[in-house]
């Protein structure tokens, strides 16, 4: 069978630049095959969706014009007049949502298989960072069509950021580019969305992917315990990559289907002077936090309920990111149980709060 090394182009490059390092990174990794192998694909799907975001985002950038008087109009122009503009915009929106969904799935699959343990602590940290960045990506991109819902959701979202003690006011002013959500906020969010966040995301993503390739796939406990002759592996390249490609194709097909049959509304153009519409809701991935803040009482002892909520979620995110570094003095068995219970509670909390948020 012809391999990558047999190709003339590769030989040409290899003879000049010595690509053995890259080859090693590709070929040395073996992917364990067992009943939970499916979870290994979640990261790849998230990566694929990010690439879709990158491509469709660049295409949208060719027509999108940020500004109070041009954002909504340019998105409407993209959707209605630009050839395949409707498809690109819908792919971008759907892909964004699916990317965050798969990132969550990927993260929890890693958590429950305890793949974050040594030597993958930094892979976990960069992964959590990527999820946070993806959510900020979503928040900043949500405002860009400048419609009524996104306008008021941004108002609410930046207000929540303003609840952080001491630095909250400053954060809100920096985010909004002033006292209120205006055209200045739009320009700022556009800057975050197309320049700052992509740069940060790309850096963290490269580190994350490098670490994944460098350290290799984690093996679950039951797999580790198997005798060597019963352990089954496939090579990352090309075997796993081909399977990845097949799944990517299926996801692409799903994306096109969603983009065609479940198109995203453009909504009503934002008007700062109009009253806030009823039922302002954030994007689904912020819903659990939004709902929790809504359900908190006005005061919890000496602290305001909203401030407590914001601090709690900030601390929880930090603790979640640092989980690989948490040491337990008790037996390993106890740590496994604690993590299982903790992870289950977190999933239940997120799912139930999201459902309540949409039902209430």
């Amino acid at each position, binding site marked *: *069978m012809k391999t990558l090394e047999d190709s003339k182009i590769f030989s040409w490059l290899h003879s000049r630049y010595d690509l053995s390092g890259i080859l090693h990174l590709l070929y040395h990794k073996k992917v364990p095959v067992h009943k939970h192998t499916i979870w290994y694909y979640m990261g790849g799907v998230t990566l694929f969706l990010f690439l879709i975001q990158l491509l469709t985002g660049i295409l949208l950038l060719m027509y999108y014009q940020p500004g109070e008087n041009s954002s909504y109009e340019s998105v*409407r122009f993209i*959707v*209605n*007049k630009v050839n395949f503009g409707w*498809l690109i915009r819908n792919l971008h929106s759907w892909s964004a949502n699916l990317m965050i969904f798969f990132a969550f799935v990927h993260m929890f699959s890693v958590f429950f298989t305890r793949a974050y343990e040594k030597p993958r602590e930094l892979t976990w940290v960069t992964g959590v960072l990527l999820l946070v960045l993806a959510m900020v990506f979503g928040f900043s991109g949500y405002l860009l069509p400048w419609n009524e819902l996104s306008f008021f959701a941004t108002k609410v979202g930046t207000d929540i950021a303003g609840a952080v003690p001491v630095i909250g006011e400053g954060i809100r002013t920096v985010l909004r580019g002033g006292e209120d959500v205006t055209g200045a906020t739009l320009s700022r969010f556009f800057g975050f969305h197309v320049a700052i966040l992509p740069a940060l995301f790309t850096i963290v993503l490269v580190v994350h992917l490098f670490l994944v390739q460098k350290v290799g796939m984690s093996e679950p406990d039951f797999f580790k315990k198997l005798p060597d002759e019963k352990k089954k592996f496939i090579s990352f390249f*090309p*075997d796993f990559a*081909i*399977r990845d*490609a*097949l799944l990517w*194709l*299926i996801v*692409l*097909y799903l994306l*096109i*289907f969603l983009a*065609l049959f479940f*198109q995203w509304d453009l909504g009503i153009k934002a008007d700062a002077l109009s009253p806030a519409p009823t039922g302002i809701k954030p994007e689904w991935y912020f819903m659990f936090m939004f709902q929790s803040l809504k359900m908190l009482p006005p005061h919890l002892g000496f602290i305001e309920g909203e401030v407590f909520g914001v601090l709690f979620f900030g601390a929880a995110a930090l603790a979640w990111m640092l989980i690989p570094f948490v040491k337990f003095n008790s037996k390993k068995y106890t740590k496994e149980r604690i993590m299982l219970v903790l992870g289950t509670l977190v999933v239940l909390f997120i799912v139930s709060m999201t459902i309540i948020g949409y039902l209430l």
Partner: protein
Amino acid sequence: MKLKLNLFLALPALFLLFNLQANAFSTASQDSTVDNCIACHQDNDNMPDNYNPEDIHYKVGLSCFNCHGGNPKTEDEDAAMDPDKGFLGAPSKEEIPAFCGRCHSDFAFMQQYRSEVETDQESQYYTSQHGTLLKKGDTKVAVCSNCHTAHSIFSPNDPRSSVYPANLPETCNACHGDAEYMKDYSIPTNQYKLYKTSVHGIDLYEKHDMSAPVCNDCHGNHGARPPELNSIPRICGSCHVKNLNYFSSSPMGKEMEEEEIHTCETCHGYHDIQKASDDFIGTGEKSFCIECHDEGDEGYITAAFIKSRIDTLKLKYSTASDDMNNVIIKGMDDIDISFKLKEARQKLIETRTAIHSFDTSQVNTIASQGIKLSNEAIGMAQKEMDEYYNRRTGFIYSSIALLILGLALYLKIRTKNGKDKKA
């Protein structure tokens, strides 16, 4: 802020002072600030009917003696209302127009209160049907106070005014709707009932459109009289300008005017004017054309042609509207279609207006433009629908392509697996 606060405190004090003065009339009768007319008439519970302290005259500082004469500064009833010293008392009905006209016909006096003011109400009144009959000694006719009231007068722009547009029909109807009161005049008394059912009445009472015409818009106000037949088109045309222009320049308009045949009202009626229907024209049962024109004559053929063009335009416009709705339902782009349809709608309105020219050429020109615009809208809607189905076709093609690619990958994986097992 300080000034406002002072005023705020001063107002109750003034109110208290006013009441003290009124109650202590007998002891403070020589006070030059006391208006003894009001004080005494209030004490004796003898104020005029419908007296309203918000009356426009009272609000600008005019009091009883400014109209009725007399001396408000003395408490002596005889001295206060001494005819030898200028006391006029209540005017008789015949005297009222001149009574009000003492000020309202005096431009210099009226200018003290408003920079732009009309002072011809009295002279106009005497040209009106009311004024003409009054001069002949008929005291049943309306004078100033019948429409404006005597002591509750407000600006015509004030919703409390009896002559505010929304109130005027009822004011006129107070006399004109009273069959017993109007029995000597041999005119109908159902105008108000009819008006309420008319397109204008519905605009006024149901849509609260204060620009809808009321009695005075067609009959005049101070010079109110029934319009002459040949002035009807110009009265209607004061609002329906284009209709008047078409009608005046049409051969039928000239003939109608010369022969004093009724004009606008012939088809549209007058007090009970209904929303115009396209069936008014043509050769159908509801058409007014066939009341004068017989089958085969020029007017009959013209009516049939005009109706056919309107019907064609309406059909095209309706088809285009339905097509656009389908485009909206499918979630496709309807913006340009809606603009095109607005233009077509405008042409439909213009065609309906151009009917009043009774000229097939003029009607055809505008109707054809509307039909063309509607056809363009239909074409645009079709294009959007084609695009809608193209997307689905595209989805089928892309599905096939992705399926082939997927199958190829799947086969590759299977082949590889087989080779690995053998190895």
